[in-house]
């Protein structure tokens, strides 16, 4: 039985369709992340699950029960809001206990629940304060505490970390992950931050224009994207897209990358990655997708044992990040980003020998932007 199941949900605001036939299901204890650019419908979907926005059509089930037309209070869910939405006139203790009070939980039990979540989130010393006396990170904890106190079937997180500074965001991200591992709660989490999505999720739904483009594990989404949008959205720096023409035949496909003012670059397509779809694509221009980390600098010590297809390019910009160096290199008609070892000494204008791991490359149709191989 799924903890949450969404079936063919549509939502219109006037004549604009915000959600177009969205379906998904997650199991109890799963961490689902809805990710996508602004206006993709992820927050609307969240509000539909919460019952804050009625859907136009479709059904929503929680724990096997249909709850499409129930009020938010009747759905056994709790939500953490982007702005935290702490009740300003109440103390932290009252904030956490409010949901229980509304559900007529006896006072002793309420107190016990407050103590429990305060311990869990290390906010026991803040219980008598008002929200205005808390820092951003503390407010965030209290907002989570308010959700945790009720122990609902599903937790909804609506971009909970976007109001925190960068350092705190990473800390709270780890904390949310720990909390999920410890409590085994079912979580639906909305974010536009693909790193949050990759680090937290058991399951990611990438959304765009009111549709779910791909639903899968972080590994699937990252390494096996269904189209150019998903491939480009996940990963930072994002995937390089290179215009290329397919040549050859089954067992010997090659990609020709035209480079203005220089010889064409020819990259062999690995046999292990061949699909039937490729036969129809010979002679057509396609889009080759290579992530920055698929490039490595040539290591002379490896000699013959070096793997990958050799490639040389002139460095236009080198950006050291500490952990590695991001190189901008002209390739084909555009520029690509390669992530190389920080010990690699390069200066702009210098020519560098690289290796590219074609076994991890992906190939898209240029017109439909769908994945081919």
């Amino acid at each position, binding site marked *: 039985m799924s903890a949450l199941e969404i079936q063919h949900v549509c939502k219109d605001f006037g004549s604009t369709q915000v959600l177009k036939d969205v379906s998904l299901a997650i199991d109890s204890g799963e961490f689902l992340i809805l990710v996508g650019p602004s206006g993709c419908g992820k927050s609307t979907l969240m509000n539909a699950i*919460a*019952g*804050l926005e009625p859907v136009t059509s479709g059904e929503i089930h929680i724990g096997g029960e249909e709850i499409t037309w129930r*009020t938010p209070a009747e759905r056994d869910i709790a939500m953490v809001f982007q*702005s935290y*939405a702490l009740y300003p006139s109440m103390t932290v203790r009252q904030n956490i206990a*409010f949901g229980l009070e*509304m*559900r007529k939980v006896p006072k002793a039990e309420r107190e016990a629940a407050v103590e429990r979540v305060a311990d869990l989130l290390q906010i026991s010393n803040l219980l008598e304060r008002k929200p205005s006396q808390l820092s951003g990170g503390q407010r965030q904890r209290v907002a989570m505490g308010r959700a945790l106190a009720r122990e609902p079937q599903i937790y909804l997180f609506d971009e909970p970390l976007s109001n925190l500074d960068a350092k705190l965001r990473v800390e709270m991200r780890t904390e949310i992950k720990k909390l999920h591992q410890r409590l085994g709660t079912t979580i639906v989490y909305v974010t536009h931050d693909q790193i949050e999505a990759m680090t937290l999720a058991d399951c990611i739904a990438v959304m765009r224009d009111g549709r779910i483009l791909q639903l899968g594990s972080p590994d699937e989404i990252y390494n096996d994207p269904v189209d150019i949008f998903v491939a480009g959205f996940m990963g930072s720096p994002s995937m390089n897209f290179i215009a290329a023409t397919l040549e050859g035949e089954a067992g010997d496909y090659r990609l020709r990358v035209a480079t203005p003012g220089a010889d064409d670059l020819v990259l062999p397509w690995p046999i292990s990655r061949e699909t039937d779809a490729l036969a129809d694509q010979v002679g057509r221009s396609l889009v080759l997708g290579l992530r920055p980390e698929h490039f490595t600098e040539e290591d002379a010590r490896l000699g013959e044992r070096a793997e990958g297809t050799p490639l040389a390019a002139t460095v236009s910009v080198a950006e050291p990040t500490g952990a590695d160096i991001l190189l901008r290199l002209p390739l084909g008609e555009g520029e690509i980003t390669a992530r190389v070892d920080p010990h690699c000494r390069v200066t702009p204008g210098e020519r560098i020998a690289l290796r590219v791991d074609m076994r991890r490359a992906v190939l898209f149709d240029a017109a439909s932007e769908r994945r081919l191989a």
Partner: protein
Amino acid sequence: MDNVIRRQTPMARLLRVLVYAALGVAALFYLLPLAVMVLTSFKPLDEITAGTLLTLPENPTLAPWVKAWGEACTGMRCEGMGGYFWNSFAIVIPAVAISTLLGALNGYALTKWRFKGAELLFALMLFGCFIPFQVILLPMAQTLGWLGLSSSRAGLILVHVIFGVAFTTLFFRNFYVSIPDELVSAAKLDGAGFFRIFRRILLPVSTPIIVVSVIWQFTQIWNDFLFGVAFSGHDTQPVTVALNNLVNTSTGVKEYNVDMAAAMIAALPTLVVYVLAGKYFVRGLTAGSVKG
């Protein structure tokens, strides 16, 4: 102004003096009528006829105030302003309380429970702020007659509530617009309903706008003369009507000192309310215009 750094030339200093002088003159000009009223109300009658308006009382006396409060004639009766003063309170307090509460509920419903046509409804309600009082005198008299509330205190309270709701709704609507909707969403998920959210979440943060609404309504209703004279009975006349009757009573000598004392009595409550809550008034009016 003081964060602008300028060299203090003699010319600049002279200009500054001129500015303050002009401001001082303007302030004096506006305070003069009040000063005349206060001075006159403490003078015996013979000093008023002998001296000028601005001479200080030689023998200050409270007699005009005592007479205005308890003995002066307002039309046929000679019982002073006291009874009417309390009449006004009996009208103003319920009218202010009811119109403020209704305005708060309206503002809450219009902003946090948006329904189709909410904006249109609000725009229509705003018309109420611009209708001249005189226009509705006759229809309102007829309505009060149908309701059996003619010449009653309840009828006058009803009229003031109806007129006040347009303003109080405007105040509360604009205040609640600046309160995040997510607070209401969170409370809905926590299981609170319409009135519970209003009472537990929004009302506790509404103090500044409640103060604005109370001051505004108190001043409007206390100072009202037209509805008071049109819709009240003999026993329920507000203090403004009594003041008019007192000043217009034409029997005997014109007692300017008593008139002035009566006018001061009629004006005091609104002044007191403003002095006590004035800083909240300004704060409430600007609330929401600046974030944080």
